[in-house]
């Protein structure tokens, strides 16, 4: 009797489950169609940009140069318009693929949908820029070239730009990593030892407000070469900022955390390594990200004022020749590079501070 009832019950339940899942399926199918429309919407802006480039009449007198590239041993000839269309197609491909990848995850779907309008507008903006800059050439030349000309800079100067990019990266990596290590190190000493705080902190506070590039004359004359001079300037701007915040983070550790650790048997070094530093981590990262922004500024400035290479140097050089399309090309690279670095730092920060997730207001 009892088992019968149970069987009936479970049968009913199964039916209900089926009904629910059928309902959900219908729902999600409708959702999927809707999301595909979103993807189409996202890429359609770039598609319009391609159509504009192909079919809008070239009225202004602009030289559409031809380049020959060596790709995997093949000798390929292409115009700057071809290259521009290639870039647009690549963007379409990337956004379409990321849309398909987002399909099965609710959060990434929502994020993707939110970005759709902006990405569409980006495509339209490129199309308008193409019309204004290249097709009709409405803007003052040579200051405002069209998108195809900016891409021309990469075709004409590709390996040279890459060389300068690497130079910038080397400078940044050397300077910033040194700055972080020294900043965190000094910050810990200042935060932990009252004596060090007394003697070093005021110095740091005063020198810290001076923009690093102000030291450039000294750096250039006293250091053996210009590379080390620039590294020095980046180190300075990262060092002070990070040391300042690290010290603050160490000092604000609640006494109870130390007491708990001491009672559990922690040594003095244990207190620094496993209590003070983890507690200071959020502040250390605040220091690192704000120092990072300053390091970019210092990097580009010092490259413009006396380096034999780097993106800043490339900009300066292009300006001399009035090649503003190259200046723009370098700026685009910087934007991408610096965002990428920010993104990487953000990822590391998020991972390191995962214990804070949900505690802080977003």
């Amino acid at each position: 009797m009892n088992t019968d009832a149970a069987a009936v019950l479970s049968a009913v339940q199964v039916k209900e489950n089926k009904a629910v899942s059928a309902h959900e399926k219908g729902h999600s199918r409708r959702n999927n169609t809707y999301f595909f429309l979103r993807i189409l919407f996202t890429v359609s802006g770039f598609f319009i940009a391609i159509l504009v480039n192909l079919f809008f009449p070239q009225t202004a007198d602009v030289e559409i140069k031809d380049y020959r590239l060596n790709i995997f041993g093949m000798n390929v000839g292409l115009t700057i318009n071809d290259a521009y269309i290639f870039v647009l197609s690549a963007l379409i491909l990337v956004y379409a693929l990321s849309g398909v990848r987002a399909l099965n995850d609710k959060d990434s779907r929502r994020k993707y949908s939110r970005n759709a309008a902006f990405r569409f507008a980006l495509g339209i903006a490129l199309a308008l820029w193409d019309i204004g800059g290249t097709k009709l050439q409405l803007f003052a030349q040579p200051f405002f070239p069209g998108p195809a000309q900016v891409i021309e800079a990469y075709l004409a100067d590709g390996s040279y730009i890459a060389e300068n990019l690497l130079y910038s990266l080397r400078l940044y990596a050397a300077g910033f990593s040194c700055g972080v290590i020294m900043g965190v190190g000094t910050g810990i000493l200042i935060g932990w030892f009252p004596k060090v705080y007394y003697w070093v902190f005021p110095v740091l506070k005063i020198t810290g407000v001076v923009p690093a590039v102000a030291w450039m004359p000294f750096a250039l004359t006293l250091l053996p070469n210009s590379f080390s001079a620039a590294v020095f300037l980046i180190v300075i701007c990262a060092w002070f900022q990070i040391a300042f915040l690290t010290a603050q983070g160490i000092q604000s550790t609640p006494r109870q955390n130390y007491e708990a650790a001491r009672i559990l048997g922690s040594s003095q070094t244990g207190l620094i390594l496993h209590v003070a530093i983890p507690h200071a981590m959020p502040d250390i990262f605040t220091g690192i990200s704000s120092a990072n922004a300053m390091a970019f500024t210092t990097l580009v400035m010092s490259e413009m004022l006396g380096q034999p290479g780097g993106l800043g140097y490339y900009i300066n050089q292009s300006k001399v020749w009035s090649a503003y399309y190259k200046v723009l090309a370098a700026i685009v690279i910087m934007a991408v590079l610096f965002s990428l670095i920010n993104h990487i730092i953000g990822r590391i920060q998020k991972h390191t501070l995962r214990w804070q997730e949900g505690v802080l207001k977003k």
Partner: protein
Amino acid sequence: MSSSISITDVGRVYTDTDGNKVTALQDVSLDIREGEFVSIIGPSGCGKTTLLRLIAGLDKPRSGSLTIDGRDITDVSPERGYVFQQGGLFPWLTVEKNIAYGLRARKVFKREREKVSEYISMVGLDGFEKSYPHQISGGMAQRVAIARALINEPKALLLDEPMGALDSFTRSDLQDKLLELWKHKRITMILVTHDIDEAIYLSDRIVIMTPRPGRINRIIDVDLPRPRHRGGSEFLAMRKEILELFRLAQAEPQPEYMI
């Protein structure tokens, strides 16, 4: 694995930010036997935390002396575990790593790592190993704090209102857990609480303190057999007796409050 603690004529005076002297403890004497469960109760500000911190070695008395097994208490030690009044966990460590902290701090983690899961189960936190302190409830956090203190196998465990912020169900649950641990490990327990029922339910002796200046007013032996019943007539009688003591203590003339 337990030890006796004696406190003789201990006094502690704080100077507050305005420079006023606050006598947190005056002439406090108390002998705690090995393996005894002692509760300290009294109104807020009567010096309970101050006394516990002195026993832990986190603070030094202004007068008098504190010894454990005949040795002076001069510093903190892993043999006296401590559970803070609130928020003593490391927020950047998971439950598991908080509990393992003592092993790591004493550099025995490699040898004794299997104790971590043992202590996690002991306080009933299986499945929450990887959670961070802000992701668990207050009652769970206090259980983590207790496990973290016990993993060092202390001779005495000092608990500062570990159940202060808990609802009555979680509270009685944790009380039973604590009794079980005490029976099992035979540690000397010193528990600070606001809750008279809790004190009667758990302890061998109850120390009643009064404020301004903080001193011991009375020490009551709880001779009820265990397990105790909160509704039993002896239980209720004892409760009434203690309440009466507080009423008397409060009835002493306090001119500044009289109109």
